[in-house]
């Protein structure tokens, strides 16, 4: 087990290295001269040349990459062009806000999706199963940015129950969490349904039922636990997908997280910050996949890793 954990963690390093290559190249495929982009449109040639010297842009690409990597290793992601603060500082100030939003949304979607999905599977082809399937197809089709706006229009403008945006109190969480989890609950529900259906007809479940165990024990101990692996996979995937979705949700709800910072940086062409945010979010995805893989080994003792 420990060997597997170490090996699995080790496998993430090439991936992280690959991600840094991509984030590095991201700012180098820019049309035109990156030094001029950093300096701004009205800068004189001398200023551009100074910046080229300062950022090492006159060196070859591999050299620039190693400088970038060396800085990253020291936790230095450069300086924001917009605010002149360090990128690390900017990101860390907002990262917890985004992480709490996404985690809460995925947790809500997971609880709801697993409960309804299990129910759907047990009452296979019942009216409620059909309704749940249909509702989930609707949910996955609603753009986050539209559901967000409609929720604001209803609950903030018309009913005046909840704040339209911003951050601070628990009430601020309700609308963004609702619209984000609406989007990802469908997939969790669908995977739960098909995976529970699959386990439901296995012999060990029939044995448990014929022993006369109460139904909820059969469902909880013998069915859901065995159906958990695909469910865990989809939860991990949804987490990653929402990390992209926060850009939209945070823009709609004026949420002070990485998503809104990213949009701010895109419009002010603040490439060091864009680079930093993309890197951080990709690392979170890699970490999520790692945790999912390790959780397999914990919940399923049958899994043997060579």
């Amino acid at each position: 087990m420990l060997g597997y954990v170490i090996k699995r963690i080790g496998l993430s390093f090439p991936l992280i290295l690959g991600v840094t290559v991509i984030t590095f190249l991201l700012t180098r495929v820019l049309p035109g001269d990156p030094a001029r982009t950093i300096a701004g449109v009205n800068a004189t040639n001398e200023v551009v040349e100074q910046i080229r010297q300062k950022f090492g842009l006159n060196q070859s690409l591999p050299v620039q990459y190693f400088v970038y990597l060396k800085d990253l290793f020291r936790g230095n992601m450069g300086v924001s062009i917009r605010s002149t603060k360090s990128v690390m500082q900017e990101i860390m100030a907002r990262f917890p806000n985004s992480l709490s939003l996404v985690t809460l949304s995925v947790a809500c979607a997971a609880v709801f999706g697993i409960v309804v999905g299990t129910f759907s599977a047990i009452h296979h082809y019942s009216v409620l199963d059909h309704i749940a399937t249909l509702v989930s197809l609707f949910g996955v089709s609603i753009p986050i940015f539209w559901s967000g706006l409609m929720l604001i229009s209803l609950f903030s403008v018309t009913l005046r129950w909840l704040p339209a945006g911003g951050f601070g109190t628990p009430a601020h969480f309700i609308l963004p969490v609702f619209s984000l989890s609406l989007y990802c609950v469908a997939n969790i529900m669908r995977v739960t349904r098909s995976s529970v259906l699959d386990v439901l007809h296995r012999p060990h479940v029939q044995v448990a039922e014929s022993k006369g165990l109460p139904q909820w024990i059969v469902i909880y101990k013998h069915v859901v636990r065995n159906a958990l692996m695909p469910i865990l996979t989809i939860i991990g995937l949804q987490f990653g997908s929402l990390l992209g979705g926060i850009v939209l949700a945070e823009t709609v709800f004026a949420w002070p997280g990485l998503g809104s910072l990213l949009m701010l940086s895109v419009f002010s062409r603040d490439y060091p910050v864009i680079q930093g945010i993309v890197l951080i979010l990709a690392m979170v995805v890699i970490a999520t996949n790692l945790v999912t893989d390790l959780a397999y080994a914990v919940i399923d003792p049958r899994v043997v890793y060579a």
Partner: protein
Amino acid sequence: MLWRNVWKTLKKSRIGLVGLGLILLFVLISILGPLIALHDPLKINLAYSLEGPSRDAWLGTDVLGRDILSRLLCGARPSLLICFGAVGFGMIIGVPLGVCGGYFRGKVDLVIRSLADLLLAFPPFLLALSLIAAIGVGLNNVLLAVGISTVPVYIRLVRAETFTIAEEDYVTSSVALGRSNTGIIIAHILPNIIPVIVVQSTLFMGITLLYAAGLGFLGLGAQQPQPEWGAMLGAGRNYIFSAPQLSLFPGLAIFVTILGFNLLGDALRDALDPYQT
């Protein structure tokens, strides 16, 4: 043969038919939209700014007095071009790579698989958005960026499917008979991976539309004054307090179209893969 059976199953699925109907409507509107629009979608008339639905402008007008319905009808075409274009692009790049990885295995597979894993480390919408940040805004760039974000999923899916099919006896016999790799891929692999590609592509149409509309909403897609659903929604956002119809209708159009693709994709999945519960 396969397709006749698919059609038979699909005909029985009400959900699938509704989805197909919505998609046909969407395609029809994007072809005929500019012809049936009552007003010029670009015509600015400040005297009619932010009007509610009326007999002349059924869905009301936007801040510049432009007819929302006409803009919606004309905005279908860019959305359609992006989602078909992006899915087509993802397919053209992803499917051959996936087939090569799954069929040739070994080092080729390692390289292709690593590429897919690397791209999958980025949340897909974030990948598309950061590509736009690098290459610039505009509809063509949205198509490219969203297309690239679908590539790793195609690779992974097609690779796994090819991997399984390449183990089948009929493939082994063809190898034994001395058939060339190209011959085997064309005769045995491709026909068998088409069903999963069709299902995934249908679902991807909805997803790419969603991403493209999201980028448009953020102001990174179509630029003013061109009508595009996501951009219209983004422009309506500022008037959510006074004129919610500005965001209601474009969003509804996006939602219904994505729903069409998801309903059809769901039904196709059932029809093409009857063993999956």
